[in-house]
């Protein structure tokens, strides 16, 4: 049986402010570094071949790295997500709470 195939980068990828785009296999997606400051990446995103963007992905890692998971329906991705699900729920609750507080202040 064949259950999973991977297409991996053969050589290390190095991106900076000048050389800020890595194009995925067959142009299927792009990894774009939008803003970097020495030891922090302040903004980065992934684009698909149709130009859809994920939006800025820098928040969770606070700019320390660009580790990433995309598509919860892929079992490899969902296994990794399963290890951090509880943390994700807590983070979402905290974000909802912060937004509610902002709205509350704005209403005053």
């Amino acid at each position: 049986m064949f259950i999973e195939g991977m297409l991996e980068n053969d050589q290390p990828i190095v991106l900076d402010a000048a050389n800020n785009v890595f194009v995925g296999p067959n142009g299927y997606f792009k990894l774009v570094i939008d803003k970097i400051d020495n030891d922090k990446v302040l903004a980065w995103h992934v684009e698909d071949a149709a130009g859809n963007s994920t939006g800025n992905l820098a928040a969770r890692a606070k700019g320390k790295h660009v580790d990433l998971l995309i598509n919860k329906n892929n079992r490899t991705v969902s296994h990794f997500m399963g290890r951090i699900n509880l943390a994700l729920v807590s983070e979402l609750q905290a974000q909802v709470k912060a937004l509610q507080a902002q709205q509350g202040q704005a209403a005053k």
Partner: protein
Amino acid sequence: MRMRWTSLSAGLALWGLLTVPICLAADPPRALMVSPAKDCAVVADFAGFKDVKTDSHLRKITLNEGLVIRGSKVENGKVVIPASGLYYTTRTPKSGVLQGDKVLILGKLYHFVDQASQLDVIKDVWVKKEAGVPFGDGTKKLELSTMEMGANGFPVPNATFKILKQSGNYYGVTFPVAKSDLLIDITSGVLNQGTKRDPGTYHPSDPGQDFETEFYASSVAVSGQTYLVASQVTPEGAQVREFATGAARYIVLTEKDPAAGYLAPGEKLSGGGFTVEATEVGPDYAQVKLTCDQSGQSWTKRLGPITAESIKYMPVDEQTRERFVLRDAQSRALVQINLYQADGPIKQGKVSLSLYHDLFSLGNPCPWEPDRRFVFRPDT
């Protein structure tokens, strides 16, 4: 780099001639068996990574793409992702050959035509607690993930092994083993017929029923072809007498739809520069002739017999599977008898055949020819 499919087809046709997976040119340190950081970015749904429903002779399945980045860092104004640190992943839920299953790669569906596998075995190795030993080509590990003391309420070590795969994920089954004078090893067969107890409730004080000194364990753990035999389990680690598990050697795919149909003797199908003719159809077999249209070279084979014995391990048994397929000498085309066709492989004197063509092979690992900046690797 976006490649036009017209030029890609020619590349893939040449690629199909490669029967032995070639080595990768340079081999920098790779982030294999590495998980993404726990504070990684998470995108639950994204249009560019698809979930595609497909149909086969047997069932409908959904194939799912994804993207993973692991082992990355930011330093001195640069983002660095190690080799194999970024991977596109495509999942094929237990797809098999012969049954019309498909594989999704970068948004395109490919017919899953052929495959070969291997069994990797290691023997007499000591595995330390929370450590692992490599096996096969060194891209996977047998990991002694947990050593639990006191699982039964008294201090005896219980080891749980996991198989860490190239993707950083674990094989879906764990392998718990224990071995101690305080435990009854069920590999002796002591529980094969059950115990002599009658249904009911027992107390330790009942004559001959002190179940609080009766604890079972197994020094062998299995999952299908995969087995682990422990000869010693201690709080510090475990001695593995033997461990074996399977892996893919290569898979064979094509983007082109096969020529397919029920053929009576003398009828033909053509595709990709090849023609197949059913020359004889019996109750459980068919004689077929495959011809290369350009060279005129031909190959003949009697496919079958289709019996309960011959199909019992189909489609995974690659030795017996050879009875049901015919290839040209360069493996550019493959004819299969459709064992899993809904109406049966043979009906009313006709045989259901598929002629796959424009085949290409993907090794474990091998360069991804349409874009050689990438390596294809099955995660099995």
